[in-house]
């Protein structure tokens, strides 16, 4: 009986969908939440600014 319970709980743990695993992982969310705006807003923006030719 106990073995069956364990099997069931293991199956339940395995059945957690990928999206839920992502939403349950605060550090992965932190990584994404810092990485996205850093790449698309800050780094891309800085690259465009530093590529402006200097006045001669």
């Amino acid at each position, binding site marked *: 009986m106990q073995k069956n319970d364990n099997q069931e709980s293991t199956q339940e743990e395995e059945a957690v969908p990928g999206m839920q695993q*992502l939403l349950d992982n605060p550090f992965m969310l932190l990584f994404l*939440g810092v990485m*996205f705006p850093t790449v698309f807003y800050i780094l891309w*923006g*800085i690259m465009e600014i530093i590529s402006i030719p200097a006045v001669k």
Partner: protein
Amino acid sequence: MAAKMFRQCPDSGLFFHKSAESLMKAHAVLGVVYLLVGGFLGLLVALTRMPSLHLLSAEDFYLALSIHGTAILIFWIIFFEMAVLYFAASTLLRCRPATPAFGWLGFLLMVIGSTLVMVAFFRGNSSVMFTSYVPMPAEPIFYLGLILFAVGALIGCFIFLGTLVIAKQEKTYDGSVPLVTFGALTAAIIAIFTIASGAVILIPTWLWSLGFINHIDPLMYRTVWWALGHSSQQINVAAHVSIWYAIAAILFGARPMSEKVSRTAFLLYILFLQLASAHHILADPGVSSTWKVFNTSYAMYLAVLASMVHGLTVPGCIEVAQRKKGFNNGLFEWLKKAPWANPVFSGMFIAMIIFGFIGGITGVVMGTEQINLIIHNTIFVPGHFHATVAVGTTLTFMAITYFLIPVLFRRELIWPTACKWQPYIFGGGMLILSLFLLGAGTLGVPRRHWDINFSDALLQFQFAGTAITMLGIAGFGGFLAAVGGALFCLIAVGSLVFGKRLDPGASLFSSFGFPMASSCYNVERPGKLGLAPVEQTGDGGVQAKGTFVLALVFLASFVVYFFINAKYLSSIWPMG
């Protein structure tokens, strides 16, 4: 035997840990102090922009505007948000906070930092406004103060994450964290990005003010600074939306219509909300249209989608809960029979409506590169963010304060009639202010300007009488909002000092961050937070018919306003 560190509120059933409770109180009280300071100076600003009064001199105006912006947009909001983070992690997860001693260190840094900034302002040489654009210099202690404040807030964010880890390790809850905690996590993540961006630009600017660096490029400053300046307001959005869900659950027993949808909407915030900072750079040369359009349109619209999801699901879940209680007649009986005399509800609902209809729609208009040209850097912009921050966030924080004073501080609210009316006075005043600033801005009135007519210049400019009238009405709205804001501060502080004690262990000191009497903490470890039961909503997902109609009205308003602005643009900028 482990010490008993928790108490259970007999009214709400919530568990408060001794250390976390003190940290919540200290942060919330300091926040209200800055609301009072910033609000009073906001009144002076409003009365100066009122053409018939023009209250302050130019020098005092820019000083008042600088303090108003910084005290409200940074200090009031972030102090209160730290309290929200401790509440969402420790109280909602029934968990001890991680490293409370570091929490006090963070608090101390925030107090020292904000005080330094205030000292810099009042010395009179740092009236650089909220944005502090270079090359306009402020005193070094201004930048140092902001940096210390940011480090303190960053500590608070990591304590929040640490508390989540402890809660998981100690198994204080089953399944996933509650939605409100997830929303607070979203706010914390955005805060970490925001503060890191602030460090990237403010540390060199501080060194520049000390003379160690020769030059800070203005465009570089503006671009990176707005990752701080605008994202800090996105922390607010995530925090106040979380509180909307909390209030819906507290007052109505409402459960999210779909946890999956609401959490996915928060994920969209995490990924895309900060990118909207780019709309401040839309009129700047030097960055490409591709960068501008990607960040403000394609990416920002995903965050807007998330806000629309929350705008649908929060009232939707209230409607479902109300209908279950029997308020089933017609489309809106559930709304008519809502507790409009309860400031917790009225504050939250007014905040939600004005945030969505005024703040949300104007935000999208501002984020559109072409239409932005009509209103860029006009007084339209303050009109927008008074709808989002002053109403959306501040009124929401006021609403939850009415809940927290009895539950967290264990004091009864004073002046129940004033409590009932305060959200209407503040919300009504801010609505008038926002609408007429938006109108005046559409007619070209610039923001942050002491003398829009350039009366002492060789070339003067006369605005249309309509614009002047709108500024006058906006000033009246600002006055009304200040009355509502002052009333809130009086009620909050008055309740903490004079409110009837709901617990004999609640002393005057415990209202301001000291722990309550030891006897109050009689729980060693609260019971595990169980999974909420899964409910079958049935009815094909159309239980919230009234909310659906409200959403259609919102979308129609959105389309009409967008079209009007596009049409206006075509008339002032003829093509071909």
